[in-house]
């Protein structure tokens, strides 16, 4: 039977599809065995004023900016009010590794060397005196 208003184009569901390429994979999460290592953003700076807002991530993490002279580290992060919060970590040398203790060690070694030198000098002097005495006696 002929239907005059029948659309000439038949429904062919495969007509616009690409060749079969495992379509299920597109929506599946891809897992890999690589371990993501957390990274710290930031860089070494001469002056904290040279850090721009672009260098502070808006992902909630801090950026760290150590000074060139290693005297302190600045941490910058965005605050909840839209401002950049800066925290300063100042260098603290652990006890026992300070310059003072090195000076004390140097002083101690120097003192011991002085004592050793004095001991040697005294020994030489006494030997010299003995030799002189022997010389005098032989004459």
């Amino acid at each position: 039977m002929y239907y005059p208003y029948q659309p000439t184009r038949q429904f062919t569901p495969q007509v616009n599809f690409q060749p079969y390429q495992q379509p299920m994979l597109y929506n599946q999460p891809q897992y890999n065995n690589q371990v993501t290592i957390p990274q710290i953003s930031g860089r070494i700076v001469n002056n904290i004023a040279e850090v721009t807002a672009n260098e502070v991530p808006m992902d909630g993490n801090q950026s760290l900016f150590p000074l060139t002279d290693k005297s302190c580290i600045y941490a910058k992060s965005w605050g909840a009010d839209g401002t950049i919060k800066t925290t300063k970590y100042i260098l603290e040398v652990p006890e026992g590794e300070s310059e003072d203790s090195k000076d004390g060690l140097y002083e101690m070694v120097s003192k011991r060397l002085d004592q050793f030198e004095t001991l040697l000098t005294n020994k030489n002097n006494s030997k010299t005196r003995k030799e002189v005495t022997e010389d005098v006696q032989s004459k």
Partner: protein
Amino acid sequence: MFNPSNLISALIAKNPNVQRNPQAQEYLQVIQNGDNRRGEQIANNICRAYGVSPDKALQDAKAFFHIQ
């Protein structure tokens, strides 16, 4: 009634990057609460931090989102 902005904010809130970010959570809450004054204050602070005027930032944002 369907509100597209509610849908968008709900989608943003479900983003894991946003969920991990306390600042983004705060900003999103301001948007969801409709706190215009607080939003303007945050926007002005961000503009000041980046060294741009609010007008310039608005222009750039419109250009980015292709808004006339």
